[in-house]
């Protein structure tokens, strides 16, 4: 049994899939630490533009929208994401046509579930992201999502806050999307970032907390529903929930 170890990028996954497609019980993973089974052979995969392109061409020929599906699956924050994507890719190539609608097939069920987790979190963070005004007028928004969704939410904020320079910082992965009012780049960041805040920030944050308290109807408590829609792990960066 072969274990293909990738560097976590999409290109590297497609390169690995080139060999892994016909390799019946193999594992592709990008995890830093994993359990090797007896008799397993580790293969380190280096990105190969030609192999990657051949796999991608085949995938596109089967279903032009499939590369996006696979890209979404590979953004998942769990270690089995490459295997889910490989299962989907295998079924796709074997069928030779879009498989998205075969909703009772196990590989499609799994792929759809993982995709849903990524797109749902991206949608949630269009709402749960919180900007703070910095001293230099740049708005700073830290967040720590489960999945790698920074690139998925950036276009939304670029359209919405087009006149506002901002930084969206994924603290879990050390990535930041920086926008200066004209163009946007994604950069690696240091582990700890210190941002001096504008003086008015505390005032508006206080008003927001006051609003949050006032708009609640105390006669109708339903905390379970609140936590279902707004999981506790996201509260760290929400001013209205911090410290509760």
């Amino acid at each position: 049994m072969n274990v293909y170890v990738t560097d976590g990028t999409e290109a590297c996954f497609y390169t690995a899939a080139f060999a892994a497609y016909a390799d019946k019980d193999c594992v592709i993973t990008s995890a830093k630490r994993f359990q090797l089974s007896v008799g397993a052979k580790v293969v380190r995969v280096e990105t190969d533009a030609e192999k990657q392109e051949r796999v991608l061409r085949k995938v596109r020929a089967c279903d032009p929208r499939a590369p996006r599906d696979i890209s979404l699956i590979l953004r998942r924050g769990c270690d089995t994401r490459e295997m889910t994507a490989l299962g989907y890719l295998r079924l796709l190539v074997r069928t030779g046509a879009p498989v998205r609608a075969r909703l009772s097939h196990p590989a499609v069920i799994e792929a759809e579930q993982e995709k849903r987790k990524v797109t749902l979190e991206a949608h949630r963070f269009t709402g749960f992201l919180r900007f703070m005004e910095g001293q230099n007028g740049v708005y700073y928004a830290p967040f720590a999502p489960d999945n790698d969704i920074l690139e998925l939410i950036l276009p939304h904020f670029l359209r919405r806050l087009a006149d506002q320079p901002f930084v969206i910082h994924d603290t879990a992965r050390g990535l930041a999307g920086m926008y200066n009012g004209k163009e946007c780049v994604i950069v690696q960041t240091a582990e700890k970032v210190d941002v001096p805040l504008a003086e008015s920030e505390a005032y508006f944050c206080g008003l927001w907390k006051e609003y949050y308290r006032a708009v609640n109807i105390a006669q109708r408590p339903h905390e379970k529903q609140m936590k279902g829609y707004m999981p506790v792990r996201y509260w760290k960066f929400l001013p209205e929930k911090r410290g509760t």
Partner: protein
Amino acid sequence: MIDAERLKILTESAKYDVSCSSSGSARANKKGGVGNASPAGICHSFTPDGRCISLLKILLSNRCAYNCLYCPNRADADVPRACATPDEICQLTIAFYRRNYIEGLFLSSAVDGSPDATMERMLETVIRLRKVYNFNGYIHLKGIPRADRLLTSRAARYVDRMSYNVELPSEASLRLLAPQKSKESVLLPMKQLALEKRADAEDKGKRRRTFLPAGQTTQMIVGASPETDGRILRLSEAMYRKFSLKRVYYSSYVPVVRHALLPEKCTGLLREHRLYQADWLLRFYGFTAEEIAGEGENLPEDCDPKCAWALKNMHLFPVEINRAPLEMLLRVPGIGSLGAYRILQARRYAVLGFADLAKMRVVLKRAKHFITCDGKFYGSENPTTVRTMLRLEDGAAKYEQLSMFSSPEVSLSALTGQL
């Protein structure tokens, strides 16, 4: 800039308006402007009562000339009063919006002075926000009954959604509890806006539809007056048909004000929940109000309206999951619009068995009694048995021994509305 004290007063007076949706509009950002609208709507936070915060819900003023009995802001009430200027509202909206706290503004007001004067101030706020502050996010404006129709239709060109609250489901109750309002004062502007929107949609010369892109909604208080659920649903159905409303909100009565004409206790949230279920059946499942509940009937408490309908119509079931048309799939208890869609997609490629449905996350707890999968039936055929089983599965632990002195507590499901 507005201070925390006034914000608190103006928000607490506005919070009983249920509507907080920000969907239905695709307004784009303009050059140099801030904000856009997201067609699916975005929730930005959730309060401990389980409701979402999507819009900055605020009154322009809570000094009210009217004296509606159920309202905490009525003229006779002894509550702190405050008002805000249009600029204050605009600045607050922009400051919150830039921090991604909110999706837009929900502006309402008490009738401060005359309806026309109030509506004028609200209109000024909205126009300022759009023109001076260059705001292109979502705006929901509450209409003031009896305001001039020109003001109303002018406002509709700047906002995404407008709503007039019907408040009480019959004219008699309205006369009793809200003497200054009448059925006409609420329904006429709704009708006028619906007609103008239709005319706007038919005007082919224009490329962009700017007249109330997210339509109209309304709200009714349930339990403050004696109307039955059947009556309420008929009213909703008529409004959906005549005014092309997007939503009717139901708010179960919470006693914030004590009065001899008003009930003492909260109406359980379960009633509200059942009404919403029935409302969804009207809008997305092809049901009519007549099928769901008779004119003088209330919705059953122990099972959902679709289940109740199915139990009354057992001769139509079971349906074969691999062949049934969409309309019939939608009528199976437990199968929602998403489940029905999944079944339609999947069955084009493979015959679906019971295990397949479970894997596809179609909820089968109720559905199994009403479907066959590839000819096999997994439920119980006797309607009485089904009824008993559904009830047992729903609320086995609902009942308790009462003591002489304990106050009869409302069970959790009556509070949360969930089963």
